């Protein structure tokens, strides 16, 4: 059961296609197991549909239709309905949600090649197609680890995949997303019993205040 959802500004940026790529991946992973947020995105997309319907039109070039009709004759890809078998995501711990799977070379969270960052903190960076100054990475943080507060700034999105942490906003377990506004202050601590594995997107390379960034600030030295 998802308790912490995407902020409505993120929902709108998702529907309008204005997310940073790293954020888009985390959003896709959250949506993979959150029907409520998927509905919110669909409703927001309907706004886009209406705005498309009522936009002042721009005439297509004279050859456009003919050129397009010729392409329809070209040897077709196999019908999309036949070849698209969406992989159903169960979201269970140990599964890699489908939108994340293509960024990772392994099938389970246990097989991720973690790199030691600091005591109780491991990290695995994921490649992005464009270099925008944002980062996408996974974290595995030891049970019970508390993190002191640092400064604020930048956009940060944290999706919990396994385990949980608690801060002033509540408990964040598998399926929950921390979609943090810049002004929010909190002190995250991984709950006892098992490590917490998260997927994180950060936009600003400098200061942030979520679970992930606190851990990495002293390491990165920012």
């Amino acid at each position: 059961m998802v308790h912490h959802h995407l902020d409505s500004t993120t929902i709108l940026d998702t529907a309008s296609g204005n997310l940073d790529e790293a954020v888009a991946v985390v959003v896709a992973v959250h949506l993979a197991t959150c029907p409520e947020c998927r509905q919110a995105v669909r409703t927001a997309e309907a706004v886009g549909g209406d705005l498309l319907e009522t936009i002042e039109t721009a005439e297509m070039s004279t050859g456009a239709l003919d050129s397009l009709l010729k392409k329809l004759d070209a040897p077709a890809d196999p019908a999309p309905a036949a070849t698209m078998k969406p992989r159903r995501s169960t979201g269970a711990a140990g599964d890699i949600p489908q939108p994340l799977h293509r960024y990772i070379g392994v099938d389970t969270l246990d097989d991720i090649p973690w790199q030691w960052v600091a005591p109780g903190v491991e990290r695995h960076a994921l490649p992005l197609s464009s270099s925008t100054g944002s980062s996408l990475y996974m974290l595995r943080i030891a049970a019970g680890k508390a993190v002191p507060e640092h400064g604020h700034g930048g956009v940060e999105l944290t999706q919990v995949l396994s385990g949980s942490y608690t801060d002033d906003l509540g408990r964040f377990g598998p399926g929950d997303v921390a979609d943090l506004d810049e002004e929010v202050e909190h002190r995250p601590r991984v709950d006892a019993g098992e490590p917490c594995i998260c997927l994180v997107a950060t936009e600003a390379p400098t200061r942030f205040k979520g679970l992930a960034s606190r851990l990495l600030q002293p390491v990165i030295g920012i």
Partner: protein
Amino acid sequence: MGSALQVTETPDGKGPDDRNDDHPALIARVAADRDRQAFVALFSHFGPRVKAMMIKGGADHALADDIAQDTMMTVWRKAALFAADRGSASTWIFTIARNARIDRLRRQASQPYEDIDNVELASDTPTAEDEVLAGQRAGRVTDALAGLPEEQRLIIELSFVHGISQSDIAARLSLPLGTVKSRTRLAYAKLRTELRDVT
């Protein structure tokens, strides 16, 4: 239901009055029969709209024309994937155009969005909210948008039509990001309430 080739002028003589064409039916004909007449009707209606959207997103006319053609090509290829009970034709085509805008104008991967589409196809059955949205024909959402204060409506337009992110809107309007976000949240809450009210 009019034939796809029937072209009547709007009262102001501005061109084909195809606002009442049954677009889901046209898409279904493309999906089932590879019906070119149906495709031409969809092209006539949506091509110029997608092109306008790309121009407002910063493309020049040639690039906008190209992206609009690509969008209609995707409509042809993926017609079988349109779910008429989950949203309107214009919403579906908007999402195709949006993904093209991400790929071609933002130069980013639209893959995460395609993954979301796949999740929906696999998981979701239409909700009551979906049925309201699918049933409306440029009416309900238009009314809801008209009910917003101008400062909120503008942000919605800049997001969807011009493809500008929250932080870029803040820069463009010389407003704090927090102010843009507050207005966006208010607009979204109002729109959602209006669109959920089925009575």
